[in-house]
């Protein structure tokens, strides 16, 4: 059962997955069934079975949803202003309304839900917690989303490296089929719903689809290519997936955590959801309501996944809940959520973690809200080198600026780190980064843009470290006297 837990772990310095709570809400929402201090002990964590899930109030929200019309469910999610938890923060309810209108019989025809569990951006490990312990919370969210969008088929795209989580989900999906959440003979198909199609009878299939080690398949259209059995090459947009997606049919792609929010929103209403989280810290920005799983890694005493209201300050997160910086060192910088988001500089420790962090602190965005913290001893040139290696490795090779630019950046960063860099390398690096992903994009997907933001913000915010490592170049000037051949 605990396949992921290493007997070789050095538990003295680290916790497995730490979880704390925010003063603003009295009990956790997403992690209600995953015991964490102060609500429970780590040792009591276990995979929540179907029976236990139902006993603790599970699948009530789905039943409630089935008494509403699909449009009412969409409306409720829209009113909650839930923003996608996969990184872009796009409003979930709005995304759903992009689907074509259903026919007069209430059927939307064949359309798909793709669940994005290809969590592979360095620093990001939050969805794993839900898949590790509470898979039915996600499955209930899937069933609600499928009902709201009249989707008959859902594909759960999980990354290839998550072996244990794939087994947990496989088993949970089997349980859900046995108990009639999914499938043709189920409880849901037996109960009269407000969906006029097929006399109110309604059935959803949910399948697990394992990826095979490609970061780019977390990009929504590349994910669809992976589901179709092709190379994970992102598609040009438009057409957007909601119009023409998987196998050419309308498709909605949602993150695991986004879907896990749906049951509680349906249970408690959109007004309740807006009591958590925060209005935008940026004047005129859209609010960031609700709680968020935040996976803290790097040089802190107690890294792990925490559930917090959006809008918590990075400093509070680190100092109050992560036990402060490791070995009493000072904070130097942090990546807000996945390496493509850029970096928060030494003077930005007080940044509020909400979806508008980007506009206020000169980073690309909140991303997955999984900060990686660096202490004062960290070599930021090495950080830039590591990140550029990641992007070079994961670039799918379709677009020239990304394929070539990521390789060039990695070579430049390696050279600077090794001490062989020249002053003009810095300008060259910035020029390449900017040419890779300045808006409007020069590439099909956002990978190059992420690479650009990461390298550019690190260089700009730690410029002195870079200039200290490079040497000025003296170009020998040859003067030819007399006639030359």
């Amino acid at each position, binding site marked *: 059962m605990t396949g992921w837990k290493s007997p*070789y772990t050095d538990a003295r310095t*680290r916790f497995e997955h730490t979880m704390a709570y925010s003063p603003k809400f009295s009990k956790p929402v997403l992690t209600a069934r995953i015991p964490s201090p102060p609500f429970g002990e780590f040792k009591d964590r276990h995979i929540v079975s179907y029976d236990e899930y139902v006993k603790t109030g599970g699948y009530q929200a789905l039943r409630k949803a089935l008494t509403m019309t699909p449009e009412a469910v969409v409306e409720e999610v829209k009113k909650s202003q839930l923003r996608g938890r996969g990184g872009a923060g796009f409003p979930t309810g709005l995304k759903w309304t992009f689907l074509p209108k259903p026919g007069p019989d209430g059927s939307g025809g064949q359309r798909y839900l793709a669940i994005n569990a290809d969590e592979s951006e360095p620093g990001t490990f939050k969805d794993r917690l839900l898949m590790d312990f509470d898979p039915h919370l996600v499955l209930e969210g899937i069933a609600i989303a499928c009902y709201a969008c009249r989707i008959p088929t859902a594909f759960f795209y999980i990354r290839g490296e998550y072996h244990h989580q794939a087994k947990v989900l496989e088993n949970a999906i089997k349980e859900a089929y046995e108990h009639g959440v999914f499938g043709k003979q189920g409880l849901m198909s037996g109960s009269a719903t407000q969906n006029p199609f097929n006399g109110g009878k309604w059935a959803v299939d949910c399948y697990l689809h*394992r990826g095979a080690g490609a970061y780019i398949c977390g990009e929504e259209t590349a994910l669809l290519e992976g589901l179709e059995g092709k*190379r994970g090459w992102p598609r040009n947009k438009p057409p957007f997936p909601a119009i023409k997606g998987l196998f050419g049919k309308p498709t909605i792609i949602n993150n695991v955590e986004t879907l896990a929010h749906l049951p509680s929103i349906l249970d408690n209403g959109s007004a309740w959801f807006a009591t958590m989280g925060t209005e935008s810290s940026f004047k005129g920005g859209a609010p960031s309501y609700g709680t968020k799983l935040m996976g803290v*890694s790097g040089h802190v005493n107690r*890294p792990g996944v925490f559930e917090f209201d959006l809008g918590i300050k990075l400093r509070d997160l680190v100092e109050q809940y992560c036990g402060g910086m490791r070995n009493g060192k000072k904070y130097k910088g942090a990546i807000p959520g996945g390496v493509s988001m850029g970096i928060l500089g030494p003077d930005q420790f007080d940044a509020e973690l909400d979806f508008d962090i980007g506009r206020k602190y000169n980073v690309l965005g909140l991303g997955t809200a999984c900060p990686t913290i660096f202490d004062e001893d960290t070599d930021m040139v090495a950080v830039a080198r590591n*990140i550029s290696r990641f992007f070079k490795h994961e670039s799918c090779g379709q677009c020239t600026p990304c394929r070539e630019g990521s390789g060039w950046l990695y070579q430049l960063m390696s050279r600077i780190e090794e001490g062989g860099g020249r002053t003009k390398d810095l300008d060259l690096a910035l020029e390449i980064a900017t040419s890779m992903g300045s808006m409007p994009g020069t590439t099909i997907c956002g990978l190059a843009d992420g690479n650009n933001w990461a390298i550019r913000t690190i260089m700009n915010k730690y410029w002195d470290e870079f200039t200290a490592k490079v040497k000025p170049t003296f170009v020998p000037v040859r003067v030819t006297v007399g006639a030359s051949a």
Partner: protein
Amino acid sequence: MAWITKNSAAQKVERRSQPYLTDAMKSDLRARVLPRYENPQGALLPCLHTIQHAYGWVPAQAMLEIAEFLNLKPGDVIDTASFYEEYWLKPKGKHLIQVCRSIACEFCGQREVTQACKDALNIDVGETTDDGQFTLVELECLGSCGTAPAMLVDETLYENVQPANIARVLADHAKKNGHGHGHH
């Protein structure tokens, strides 16, 4: 360089008499996997997973068999198979050690972990031991950033890895059966 062409059509495919994609695998895939997808190509990743899991790599003959099974062109299969890192198109060791080298792991002690693996096995990254037991690679992000450094041996994830324990971990795995990489 587009003007240099390789005569891939004349490439020899090493063949063995019994198929890699067995009848049992085919009937399982036909019953369980194929109906999920609108067209047979959708089932390509699960088919490749099946082969990868059973043999530890994906031989060319197996790709031809998959192409026939799914009614695809062989080129479609190799096009997909060569993109994804989890599919090994060349044989590897019985056990696969994958050390995470991404941001959190590198700055929380990944280099020492890789070095300890190299020392224990006397190979470099990307190599296989002479007895064919272990292949050592580094990969990007295992999703264990909070418990860095992390490594994956076959399907077992090790977190907060202590370099001193690596020899013991590897000795434990050497006793087990291999080819656990990538279940379907």
